[in-house]
């Protein structure tokens, strides 16, 4: 067992599970989507991205690409949140909440691909 692989897999799966946790619930209801969850998703995704740095293989490049997509979507979600609450002070109206959650939904899709790729790689390794 390779501890590096454990950490790697842990963070990639954690990124997906946290993302799912934030995403699940009524799309317009702010009470179903906590800000700490979004924070945790962003941090864990960033860590997962950095862990994917520096792998020259084709699989590594694809993994990094999915992570970059997820990060882009999540940061967009965080920026929308910040604008709504702090800059325009409109609060989390249903339409704002819907766009935040759908952005995180997109990120989740990227994270799903990431996990699938990880599984494919593991299966192909056969040892």
């Amino acid at each position, binding site marked *: 067992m390779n501890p590096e692989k454990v950490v790697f897999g842990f963070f990639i799966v954690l990124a997906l599970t946290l993302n799912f946790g934030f995403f699940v619930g009524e799309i317009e209801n702010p009470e179903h989507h906590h*800000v*700490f969850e979004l*924070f945790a998703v962003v*941090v864990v995704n*960033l*860590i997962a991205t*950095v*862990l994917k*740095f*520096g792998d*020259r293989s084709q699989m590594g490049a694809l993994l990094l690409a999915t992570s970059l997509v997820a990060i882009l979507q999540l940061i967009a979600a965080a920026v929308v949140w*910040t604008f709504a*609450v*702090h800059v325009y002070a409109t609060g989390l109206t249903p339409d704002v909440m819907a766009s935040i959650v759908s952005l995180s939904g997109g990120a989740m899709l990227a994270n799903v691909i990431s996990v699938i790729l990880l599984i494919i790689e593991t299966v192909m390794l056969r040892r």
Partner: protein
Amino acid sequence: MDSIVFLIVRRMRQPLLTLLVVYAVAILGLVLIPGRDADGGVWHMSLFHAFYFVSYMATTIGFGEIPYAFTDAQRLWVSLSLYASVISWIYAFGTILSLVQDRTFQEALAESRFARRIRKMREPFHLVCGYGETGTALVQALTRRGQHAVVIDIDEARTNIIQLQDLREVVPALHGDAALTRHLQEAGLQHPSCAGVVALTDDNDVNLKIAITAKLLNPKIKVISRADSHDVEANMASFGTDHIVDPFDTFASHLAVAFQAPCLYLLQRWLTGREGVALSEPVYPPRDGHWVVCGYGRFGKAVCARLAGEGVRVVVIEARPELTGQPESDFVAGRGTEAETLNQADIENAAGLVAGTDNDANNLSIVMTARQLNPDLFFVVRQNQHDDHDIIAAVDADMVMHPSSIIADKIRVLLATPMLYEFMSLALYQEDAWACELASRVSALVQDEVPSIREWSLDAGHTAAMHEYLVHGGQYTVEDLLRDPWYRARSLQAIVLLIHRRNDRILLPEVTTALKPGDRLLICGSRGAFTRMEWTVSHRHTLEYVKTGVDRPQGWLWRRLATHKGYRR
């Protein structure tokens, strides 16, 4: 480029992770710890404010405690996370700095810079492998003529020195082993502009490897290689290496030419000399006595063979005949540096002496001793080290054999003016009187410096005006070409040595010879003459003026006016 990004990203993984974790923990702490607003009510910092605060705290900018003054609990947390974040920043910077100084990183950087420079090459260039004495002399000569070169050398100190040398063109240099195919490819072996490969390393096997790699990967290009032994020479010739230069054989054949046709030898030295060098005096190697050859190595053997071919009796002096092999001719064991061995070789009745050992100090000592015994001797000295040039010049020998400069001169001529070699081989069939007459004409062209040599081909490129004129049926003779465009009654200080017309070679064409489009001309003359001739061949109106003596109006209006007036001569 890829490898640089890869290296940076790979090394920065750990510091970036540390920064991420420290930031996340600091932000989370600030959000969780309750604070007090201006009225004393409990207030929780939002994630956005916490991120803002940590951003300026971690970079030690410090805008203060906003929006409200912190409680003691918050301050405790901030002082802890302040140190943690500053330390992780220092860690990140330290990693970047050590990466920049890292040797692998710098080599990757230098290699990618080199590759970019090679990719950008648009003009033809020669790939010179080995930047020792010969390579240096060759690259200097090439760049002085405006030709481009790329250098590979295994010694980093030598490739670094290129930047310090005052070369006229930028010469990209790669530090690497030219025996490796990858390095040759990086240096542009398969580049469309690569015109030739010159293998000049001091290792015969490496030269062989370079020559065969070049012939296999890019069969179109010219491959020139140095070879110090006949085995390697034959090996290189077997797969079609274009030119193989053996300094010892080359010099020995020069010596033979000097015996047979002193004027031709003189002409050869003038025409192949580097520009700006003074014209040398003629030498007449004597036949009225035997020759003493000191040193029976590769050089000694080559010289002995040529001397025997000239019918001259040779006495060899060699200190270690068990290594070099016993010569067939008369033989004296010894070094030749002391009077005793020289006397055994009957130096007093000798005509010439060749100091040909591989040690410059010994060669000089041989010359000094022999000169005391017989001051009228004809001296040939072998110079091994470039730095010994001054002391070798001080003994004032009749001929000096310096392998590096012989190779460099020969290759320079092969690369810049290959027609000159053709001219020389044709000239070998002429009488020496012919060469003497030409030599006196050449010395009249230039005062005391070696003449310039140019190869022009009358095509649509460099000599476009001339080409167009000839294609449209214009008559232009050699005499017209050599007229001064400033004052057409005067001829320029130049001689057309050879015209190459399809399969014909016209040696020293008559002045009435008509030029044809596609001709290739070999011209020698003063530098000023070429500047003016370039006007003639590349400028339509100058060309017509030189031909007819009429300065025709150039602009549209003046031409119309001239036609109206019937102004046409």
